[in-house]
Each structure stands twice: as C-alpha cells, then as structure tokens.
C-alpha cells in the first residue's frame, strides 16, 4: 500500500468545472487496483493507493497520478482521454466504464474505488487484457459494406430516414465494455458477444448493404445472437449510450422475419 500526497495547486488535470475551479478542493481517495504481472507473481493481488485529488478529475487522472508519481509499473492502456478511442475500458466499482469518462465524484469516492481489468479476456498485465479474441469476433461478422453491381460515379443515395435506421450502432468505438460485461461471454468465450453483433447490425440495417443475409447466417450460429439472455448489462456498460440489447433484439427479429 502506498500513499501519494499532491500539492494543492497541482494542475495536471482539468481541476474542475464551471466557475469554481479556482476554489477546487481536494479529497482523499483510495483506489483498490487489481494488480497482475506474471513476470513477478503467478497470482493477481489487490493493491491500495491513497491520494489527494480533485473529485472532479477522472479515474484516468487518478491512475496517471499513481503511475507517474508513485508506481511506474502500474500498467493500463489509454490514448485520447475523452471517451472516443476506446482504449481504457475497465471494471470500476464492479461496472464496466471508460476510466477517462468516469469522474471520481460520481462513483462514491469516500469509499475505496475498485479498479479491475474487464472480464472474460485473458489478463496480460494489471489492467491490460488480450483484445485479440474480441477483435476476431468483430472480424468474423463481415464488418464492412458489401455491394453488388456497378459502382455509381457519384455517391450512393440514401434517405435521411434510412441513414437514421442504423445511426445508433455507428457510434461503437470497440472498447469491449459491452462484450466483457456479458455473463454469457464470461462463461463461453466462443459467443460472438454484443460488440460484434452491434457491428453486424450497423451493416445489416444499412440500406446500401447487400450482405445482410450472410451476416444473419453467421449470427444464426450456436455462438450467435441466440445466446443473448437480455440481461441488459451491455446497454448499461456502453460508454457511447448505444442501445446494445435493442440492437441484438433487432438482429434476432430479422433472423425470424428475414426483414431488415
């Protein structure tokens, strides 16, 4: 267990919101982090870090402060730091979130905040998991536009309504928060998982696409959409607000009615 004490006017982070930033007050926060490094020990263990920090900062800011000022071996992925690149999905207080989109004040900072890697994928080190099976499932649903016939010289036409039909599922950033929150996926890594289905949905319901039938056949597999038990974990987990469960249900319905 380690403690980091920060200077009062440290401004590495956003330091708060609105007009009150100058008067930002610091609180003491404990992050309870699931550590694992097979180079050091065969089993994972919990480690507590206590630090002084502005509660309006992000969990990612807290992780950075630990890494930069206390323990350089703490390992996690991150890049854009504002919820668009999808690198830093992790399990925070038992729920999948992006560390860069989660403010400390919103997750009961008076109690220890638990931070673990997302579940269902092999942990490589600390909060870093093997993303390969996740991306393989994505690649398996043919996540690209398929068209037949001659290409038009200009753009393909699409009405605003047809474009709206699949708008929600175009927001996916492939962070794996949904897939790794799914109890079916935890128990059986063969299941395509919500993210792959979301990305299939994005093309099945695109009026320009002509491979919907093929994608539906792929998802009709025993590891396909029928494994979904509609627990809605995925919808709760999605940092982009995609109605993931609804998208999965729409794919199921399309499989029954063959209309999409």
């Amino acid at each position, binding site marked *: 267990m380690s403690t980091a004490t920060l200077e009062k006017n440290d401004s590495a982070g956003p330091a708060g919101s609105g007009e009150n930033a100058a008067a930002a007050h610091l609180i003491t926060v404990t992050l309870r982090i699931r550590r694992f490094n097979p180079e050091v020990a065969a089993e994972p263990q919990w480690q507590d870090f206590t630090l002084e920090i502005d509660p309006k900062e992000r969990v990612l800011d807290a992780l950075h402060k630990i890494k930069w000022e206390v323990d350089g*071996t703490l390992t996690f992925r991150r890049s854009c*730091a504002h919820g668009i690149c999808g690198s830093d999905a992790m399990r925070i207080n038992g729920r999948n979130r992006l560390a860069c989109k989660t403010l400390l004040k919103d997750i009961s900072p008076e109690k220890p905040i638990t931070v673990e890697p997302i579940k269902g994928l092999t942990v490589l080190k600390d909060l870093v998991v093997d993303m390969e099976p996740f991306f393989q499932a994505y690649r398996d649903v043919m996540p690209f536009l398929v068209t037949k016939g001659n290409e038009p010289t200009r753009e393909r036409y699409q009405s605003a309504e047809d474009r709206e039909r699949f708008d929600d599922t175009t927001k996916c950033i492939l962070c794996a928060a949904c897939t790794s929150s799914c109890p079916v996926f935890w128990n059986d890594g063969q299941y395509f998982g919500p993210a792959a289905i979301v990305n299939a949905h994005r093309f099945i319901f695109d009026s320009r696409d002509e491979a919907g039938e093929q994608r539906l056949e792929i998802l009709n597999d025993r590891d396909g959409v029928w494994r979904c038990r509609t627990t809605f974990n995925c919808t709760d987990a999605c940092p982009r607000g995609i109605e993931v469960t609804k998208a999965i249900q729409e794919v199921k319905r399309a499989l029954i009615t063959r209309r999409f």
Partner: protein
Amino acid sequence: MSNVNNVKIHKYDTVIVGAGGAGMRAAIEATKRSRTAVLTKLYPTRSHTGAAQGGMAAALANVEEDNWEWHTFDTIKGGDYLVDQDAAEILAKEAIDSVLDLEKMGLPFNRTPNGTIDQRRFGGHSRNHGEAPVRRSCYAADRTGHMILQTLYQNCVKEGVEFFNEFYVLDLLLNEVDGIKKTAGVVAYELATGDVHVFQAKAVVFASGGNGKFFKVTSNAHTLTGDGQAAAFRRGLPLEDMEFFQFHPTGIWKMGILLTEGARGEGGILRNKDGERFMEKYAPVMKDLASRDVVSRAIYTEIREGRGCGPEGDHVYLDLTHLPPEQLDAKLPDITEFARTYLGIEPYTDPVPIQPTAHYAMGGIPTNVRGQVLADNETPVPGLYAAGEVACVSVHGANRLGTNSLLDINVFGRRAGIAAAEYADTAEYVELPEEPAKFVLDEIENLRDATGNERVFEIRKALQECMDKNVMVFRTEQTLKEAVEEIGALRKRFRDISVQDKGKRFNTDLLEALELGNLLDLAEVTAVSALARKESRGGHYREDFPNRDDVNFMRHTMAYREVGDDGTESIRLDYKPVVQTRYQPMERKY
C-alpha cells in the same frame, strides 16, 4: 521471419508505420499491390483520427454552388500563402473523389433531403474567394473522424491488411547504395513482449501522426508524441515548418478537449464576459468562422484586455443556447455530451467555457506531392514516404483550414500507399545496415538499466508548461529564447532519468520515457525554427514582428540535426522556396 541474437527479422515489400487515417488509407492501396505490413503503436481504431469531429472538405456542390478552385484558394489563403500551391490544387481537386471513395467504402455521411451527402459550413471555407461562408464540409454528425477511422479499418479487414498491433517503431534504417542513402526498413519494439523486431522493406510509409503532446492544454491524445518525425530527424532527414502549430479556438477550458468548429458552423457564437459577439470586430465577414489562427488570437486578445470570463478571466464562452436542442442532438451530440460529462454544463441552456487548445502540427517530414520524403529541398529518399500529420507536403502552410486534415490523410495517404507499393514492385531490397537493431537495443537497455534521479513525468510537465508559456499563440524573441534554453536544460536532465518498471512485458513506463525523448527533440526544433522566423504568419505570431514579411520569409523552414566531431548536437536551419502557381500573396482578411 528469422531470429538473430533475439532480434526477430521480418521481410515485407511495403511497411506502413501508423494506423490512423493516413496509414490505413495507404494500407488499403498498398496491400492490393504489394506484400504489406502495418506497424502501429496502438490498436488501429484507437488512433487519434477518431477524435476529429467536424468534417471533411470537398467541393461536391451538393447544397450550394461550389468548385475545387475556390477550395484551393481558401486553402492557400488559410495557410497565409505558405502553402505549396501545386499541392493545394491536388488536395482540392482529389477531395471530391476522396469523399466519394469513402462513401462507397461505407461511410455513413449525413444526408440531404434528396439523399446525397450533406454539407455544412466551416471556418475559412468560402464562396468565390472570400465572399461568404460556403457549405463544403461533408460530415457524419460530430464524429466524422470516428466514422473515417472505422470505415478505413473495416476496409482493411475486408482487404486482409496485415497489422502488427502495439509495435512501436523506434528507428528508421537507411543504407548507402552507390553514394545514395536508400530505405532499408524500420526497427520496432513489441510492447507485449519487449522484443525488438527488424522489418526489412523496400518501401516505408510514415503515417504516425502528430506531436502535440509537448503542449499542456491540447486536444491531442497522450500518444501523439511525434515518433515518426523524431526517428527521421535522428537519421539526418530534415523537418519542415515545425514552428507552425495550430491552436484550435474551442478547447474545453483547462482540459483542451476539442469542441468542433462545426459548432460554430451550425450557428454557435463566441462571447466575452460582457456577452459581446467579439468576432465581429476581428473578422467582419466570416465572424466566428474566420480561420483558426485568427479566432484563437482574438480570444486571447479579449482575455488579455480583461474581457475574459470567470473569476480568473481566463476563458471565453461558446454559446449554443440559441440553437434548438433538436439541432444540437442531431448535429452535435458528442460535444454536447463532453460539456455535460466533463464540465457538468447543459449546453441547451448554458454557455460552454472554452480556450484555445494546441491542436495540429502543420510542419513535419517534408514530402513531395507523391508522398516521397525529401532528404533536402528537392531530392527524394528512395523508398521512403510519409503522409498525414507526420508529413509536410505542404498543403496547410502556416495554418490549416478545418476539415482539411481529414481530407489530407485520405488524399495523400492514398497517394503515398500507391507510390510506395509501385516503387516496391520494381525496387530491390537494400541490404540492412550492420547490426540494424543496435540503436534501439542500446536505447532500451540504457533506459531500463538507468539509475538516475530524474522522473519522466516531471520533465514532461516542465516541458509542457514551458511550451504553453513561451511557444503558444503569442510569441516573442524573449519567450522563444527562454524556451530554447529551458528545453536544452530539460534535455540534459533527461539523460539522468530512470524508469521504475524494469520488466519486458507491457512496459509502458519505458514507453513513456522513449516518447518524452521524442517530444524534447521536436520541441527544440519547434522553438529554434520559431525564433528564426522574424515575422507573423498564420499560426506563428510574433508580437515583436506583427506583420507578414514576404520579402524575407516567404519560404519554408528546413531544420536538420547536426552532430559535431565531438558528438555535440545542434540544429541547422535552411530554407526552401514556396511553390506558387496562380495565387499571388494578398493581405489576409476574413
């Protein structure tokens, strides 16, 4: 793949470094024509292209009259005439097919009522040479970059592009053949294992992105550390126009997170503490949609003259409250969400505090219009290509227009990918230098074994504060000299750093140290280049030389790293003429 002294050796026709928009656009072309590998520090979909919001410019004329010549002119004027006009013409002309190509690849653009690609206004894009704003930006809500990145990745999956994810390229291998330095390959560090890999290649394309992380308030990702620029510079290749860095007017106050110019394109207004729409004073025609350097300077002028908002008077407001909530939901969903998440502000009813944020490097590795990297003012390095923010063609000159970067990566990413693969098709492999991985192995071993007292984050923080203080929107000889001196001192301190993580597996502690080394090198080039440019042009504004000086400075800066016989390093500056075709420099008014 072979294995020599624990260094793995791979052989490909074409190697692409980076998997953002430019890298993947190049990969789609190169993979069809040659055996291609893409090496990327991040998973491809994590690249910062995905953070671009507003759109991609192309004179489709879908919603009003427009043509590529107007677009060319706007690009040249926006770049304060430092743009190479032949390149700008290609950019604007090929923009149209670039957008149509993306649409055919599946990109879900917003649509007009008759089903064509919708377009909206953006800063600096005008009808008939500056008469009035024009709708030229093709967009997908306020996540156009995200949709471009996803679409290109989808098409890479479709084409079976071979990726090496989380491979960090640390060195460029050049070898002399008949007195000419030619491309032999690159050396990469595999993050997951700590292994070092040599990729022998006939052609290499650098598409590794920008270097904005040497500023503190920036829209750039943590990973934008100029790795490609620094690798080329270390190997004696020049860097062009590094003093030109763009400060985007609307970053979230203190955090720097980007709020798209599309917000102003949709009708958003900048206001000072008195509620005044101050851009009317600075740009009577284009107002809030003047080009970015103009708006950023206006914001800081308001702040300096005491009309900034908040108790510290250190920001201004982006006001969207007069726009219908449905319009914000449909056209600007992500940025309104950012305001809610990070500021706790409801943009329907409250103005959003903003300040300029370090956004985009206009400078970079010099290339010609085929994407070939230049060893001097005109000689290409055989087999070496660059595209996107890492490169300087130069289509952006002294200031890039909004929506021209998503365009740049597509037009010049495609060109570089084709040119590299075509070159690889006929060229022979260049023999690898002796002990090709030596530089990288030494670098990593030294860092891992180092026991100095300096810490990476402290030096990086000092660098970022120094750059924000001295090399931002307003510069003077004094601030730039201070910067050069301080960066020099920081580079010395950097020699005494140590990392805590001594392991091989996913050593991001070590990675951050390597990245900081690159940032320090590039910050120095930026400050030295800026000090020598005694004029104001585009993004480079010198308070001690407030006017543009076409007599002495209508030329590109070319910075070279020199190493003396005693091992001392210095930066040598040279200059390259600007290509002017049909547009004569004029005073720049918006």
